[in-house]
């Protein structure tokens, strides 16, 4: 049957671009004519994309909260009154060169006493006692911030343990507050780890549920067209020609849902920021607006791919006529 074979080949060669044009047009017309079904599908897709956008913002907010918490924790090293400043500064330089260390802040003895006076400005008795002592009873101190809160223990062990740094500076170090902060730091580490895991799991579960709901909706709309698909096949339409308009329709669901989601989150993030912004470590509205392009691109991609893929897979089932 050479003629049938050559006909099939010729058809595939000439039809590619014409098919793209016709399929797109047909998908758009079907989308418009199936008004109610299209609206329902766009609505469900909007819910899916909203969940994904919300998860994206939740994770950004969680990360910001973790960073903010981590910033509140440090190790303070207090030096003896007679510790030479150059030795303290040398230790500061040594610590700054450690990869795990984010920053080291030096507070001189003079700054310490000024800070003390500021803190106790209303406490006349304490200030009087300080004056009676004469001179400066405080030594200098340094505050060390780690890049990750899990690294504080190793930094503390470097200063307190049997290391060369500890041995060289044992004369000038009066105390290190890691032991007092240890419980807090460990709890913080557990909280951060737990939040990341819970956030990741929640994101994954909700994203999967949303995708399943969207796929089921698209599948349902295609199920309603199953007889139509059979007829199209019988009048000689190829699988891709039958499937194409459904894929375009799916992408249109994704596109319109993306548009709605993107616009909807402007007032939502604004209201959240106004209502509970003080409880959050970031300005959600500003974050959303400044990341509109990246969030928008990601959500659009998800919407188009999900819409196209759901239609592609759902239509496949009815094409074997």
């Amino acid at each position, binding site marked *: *049957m050479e*003629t*049938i*074979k050559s*006909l*099939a080949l*010729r*058809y*595939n060669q*000439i*039809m590619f671009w*014409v098919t793209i044009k*016709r399929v797109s047009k047909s998908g758009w*017309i*079907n989308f418009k*004519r*199936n008004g109610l079904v299209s609206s329902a599908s766009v609505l469900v897709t909007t819910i899916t994309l909203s969940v994904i956008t919300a998860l994206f913002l939740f994770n950004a907010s969680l990360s910001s909260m973790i960073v903010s918490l981590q910033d509140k924790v440090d190790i303070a090293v207090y030096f003896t009154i007679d510790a030479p400043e150059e030795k303290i500064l040398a230790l500061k330089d040594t610590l700054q060169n450690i990869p795990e260390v984010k920053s080291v802040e030096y507070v001189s003895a003079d700054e310490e006493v000024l800070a003390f006076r500021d803190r106790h400005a209303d406490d006349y008795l304490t200030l009087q006692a300080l004056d009676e002592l004469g001179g400066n009873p405080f030594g200098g101190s340094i505050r060390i911030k780690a890049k990750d809160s899990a690294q504080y223990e190793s930094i503390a062990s470097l200063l307190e343990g049997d290391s060369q740094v500890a041995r060289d500076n044992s004369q000038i170090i009066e105390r290190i507050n890691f032991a007092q902060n240890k419980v807090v730091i460990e709890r913080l580490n557990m909280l951060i780890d737990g939040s990341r895991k819970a956030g990741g799991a929640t994101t994954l579960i909700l994203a999967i549920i949303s995708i399943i709901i969207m796929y089921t909706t698209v599948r349902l709309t295609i199920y309603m067209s199953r*007889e*139509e698909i*059979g*007829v*199209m*096949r*019988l*009048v*000689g*339409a*190829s*699988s891709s*020609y039958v499937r194409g308009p459904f894929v375009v329709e799916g992408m249109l669901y994704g596109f319109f849902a993306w548009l709605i989601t993107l616009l909807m989150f402007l007032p939502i993030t604004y209201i959240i920021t106004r209502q509970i912004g003080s409880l959050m470590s970031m300005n959600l509205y500003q974050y959303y607006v400044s990341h509109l392009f990246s969030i928008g691109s990601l959500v659009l991609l998800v919407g188009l791919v999900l819409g196209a893929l759901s239609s592609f897979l759902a239509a496949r089932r009815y094409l074997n*006529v």
Partner: protein
Amino acid sequence: MIQFVNVSKVFPNGAIGIEHANLGIEKGEFVTVVGPSGAGKTTLTRFISGEESPTEGTVLYDNVDIQSFSGAELTALRRRIGTVFQDFRLLPNKTAYENIAFAMEAAGKSDEEIISDVPHVLQLVDLQDRMYHFPNQLSGGEKQRLAIARAIINQPEILIADEPTGNLDHANTAEVIHILKKINDLGTTVILTTHDRQVMDAIPSRVVTMERGLIVGDDKKPSIKV
């Protein structure tokens, strides 16, 4: 052109659709397949369009086994076959014009051909005034005429009409038969299935009689007016 060689079909539930059918159909013939419901008429035509595969035997199209066709080859074959169904099977979301244009698009026809041929074929079946109507805005007879227009738009080699008059009144039946005869006169092979003896008697064609999946008769009948 089409050969059924010892074709049998047993459905998954054990029901016998066709039993040892041997039949040859030549180019340009008008073949009426008659028999009561469940005789196997529709199953027989579904072998030709590749909708059904025999469980035994072969169906040949121009001496090639239809079962050996790939998906793309089967699609190409379907573009050479026009099909008309009892329940019309029109695309509900497309207008009369678009239903026909779809068949042309599927066959790879250009936009120019579509613009020129669709109004012409709609005129042929007297639906030129219904061009932008959707199927649910058409009467039964109009739907069937539209289905015929769609089936013949690509000048198929074979037109399969499966109980095309089953849902039509007397006047529309006569109209459909008239159109089918005209199509056959232009050289298209027409295979018509019907359980209606009045329809069969109206067509001067070769008559294949089926009963319970068996071909029990194959002869020519003289024509009388419906």
